[in-house]
């Protein structure tokens, strides 16, 4: 072997060693906190409950879930309300993002931007609590209506799907505004002007130019809002009460109340698959790349 290849091998070895050392913490993180835990949850969901003392794999946890009408109902409701929340967030956030990116003067835009971000520095728990105060039977809205003698009895605003929707839209709308804003920010204004010059009315400019252009942002936002809504525990418990159970509450109950971890794993794994499926669908429809979607946030 010539000296040159020896040096090259030595350099190669040094490079690989450094790379290995740099990668080690990250590898440990991904293996110990992401891959192995989620894989063991997956495996557990196919095992019998320990009290049966049976070995081998079974589909009974999934069978139990999919034949239980109540569980199916909770699952579908969570899915439906989460999609509604995502859609409402889009309706609320799109005009705001558009206004900040394209209509407001830079100075004004900066001020609005700060006002929009401030509430999101505050913990999710406190933001949820604020809606309990506002929507409760003796809450701010009901007191107000009764003071004005518009109502003699309080309207039930809390502990239903309405309060969960209002609260979750409130909690996660920044995740919709930010990506839409950043795609619109990058859009050349002359695109809209050209369309207008060519005779398009405002509605058509929005429909044919602005919305298609900001589609990647809309999709990233939708993925985040859907995922956060479907996977949160706190707002649905506090704002949904005991009548409207969220799927994550069902998972929590299986783990800590019924102490049936195997069934809990099956439910959790189904939720994971559902989220992945939703993300996959959205990405396919919009023709995006997963890592770009995440980096957009």
């Amino acid at each position: 072997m010539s000296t040159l290849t020896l040096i090259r091998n030595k350099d190669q070895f040094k490079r690989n060693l450094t790379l290995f050392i740099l990668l080690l913490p990250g590898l440990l993180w991904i293996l110990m906190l992401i891959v192995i835990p989620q894989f063991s949850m997956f495996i557990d969901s196919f095992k019998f409950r320990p009290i049966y003392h049976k070995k081998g794999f079974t589909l009974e946890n999934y069978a139990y879930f999919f034949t239980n009408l109540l569980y199916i109902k909770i699952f579908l409701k969570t899915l439906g309300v989460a999609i509604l929340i995502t859609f409402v967030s889009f309706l609320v956030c799109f005009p705001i993002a558009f206004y900040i990116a394209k209509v407001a003067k830079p100075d004004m835009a900066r001020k609005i931007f700060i006002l929009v971000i401030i509430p999101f520095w505050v913990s999710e728990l406190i933001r949820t609590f604020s809606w309990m105060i506002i929507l409760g039977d003796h809450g701010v809205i009901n007191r107000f209506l009764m003071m004005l003698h518009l109502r003699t009895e309080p309207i039930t605003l809390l502990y239903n799907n309405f309060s969960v929707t209002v609260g979750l839209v409130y909690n996660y709308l920044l995740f919709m505004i930010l990506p839409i804003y950043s795609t619109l920010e990058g859009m050349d204004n002359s695109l809209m002007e050209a369309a207008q010059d060519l005779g398009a009315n405002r509605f058509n400019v929005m429909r044919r130019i602005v919305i298609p252009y900001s589609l990647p942002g809309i999709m990233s936002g939708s993925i985040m809002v859907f995922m956060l809504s479907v996977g949160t525990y706190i707002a649905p418990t506090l704002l949904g009460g005991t009548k409207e159970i969220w799927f994550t509450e069902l998972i929590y109950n299986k783990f800590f109340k019924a102490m049936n971890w195997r069934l809990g794993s099956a439910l959790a794994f189904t939720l994971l698959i559902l989220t992945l499926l939703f993300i996959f669908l959205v990405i396919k429809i919009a023709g995006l790349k997963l890592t770009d979607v995440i980096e957009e946030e």
Partner: protein
Amino acid sequence: MQISKFEKIFYRVFLVLFLIYLLGPLLIVMLLSFNTSPAPTLPMKGFTLEWYRQLFMDKQLKESILNSIIVAIGVTIISVSVATTTSFALVRYRFKGQNGFYALALSPIITPGVILGVSILIFLYKIHFKPGLKAVVLGQSSFIISFALLTIMARLRKFDLSLEEAAQDLGASKIKAILKITIPYLKPAIVSAASLSFLLSFDNFNTTLFLVGNERTLPIQIYSMLRFGLSPKINAISTILVVLTVLAGFFSSRTGKKEETY
């Protein structure tokens, strides 16, 4: 762009309603912390600091704040260190399976927090690791590292490698060049990754709930107070937290901007 008068009015009204929706609830929470009525609702009956006095007497609450700070410091240290080394590996090297590695590294951002909590609970149980604050640190790190990674990678990608080479040409070793040139360059990103990590950890509920066992972090403590019923005491602690986080947010975005300029 040309905008009609009608549209201008529409946007203004929409914006004002939106800002009321956004900021109103928090302002009401803060206002009611000074109300004499023991039920947190309008109208204001009188001004009092009683609820704040009660806060300072609450031992459990103080303990949970301390727990949250300990956890947040642990998570911040882990997240920033793992994110920094991983950023170097991902930005400076090309290796087999890199794309897969990167996708997995970002996946926790789009995984529901409840699932991270449950799966880590199952795994820790298998290796006989008891739920508690240490488990919470691990659970929160699982996704906070991803956020720190994005922050640090974004800046490392913009780094001009020739600066490091210049230092080496001038006689510095590779490691010294990185410590003296690259790390100072990364400082703003490291500072914002650290403050983001601290904030995300301090606020976390969904993942923490599954791993905390009998110990309590502040969000868990507030949650259990809420289950007993609404009390202006919760408004008081919320007000303090809102003021602190908003101040911290302003502070970190200020320093972030200043550092960004050079």
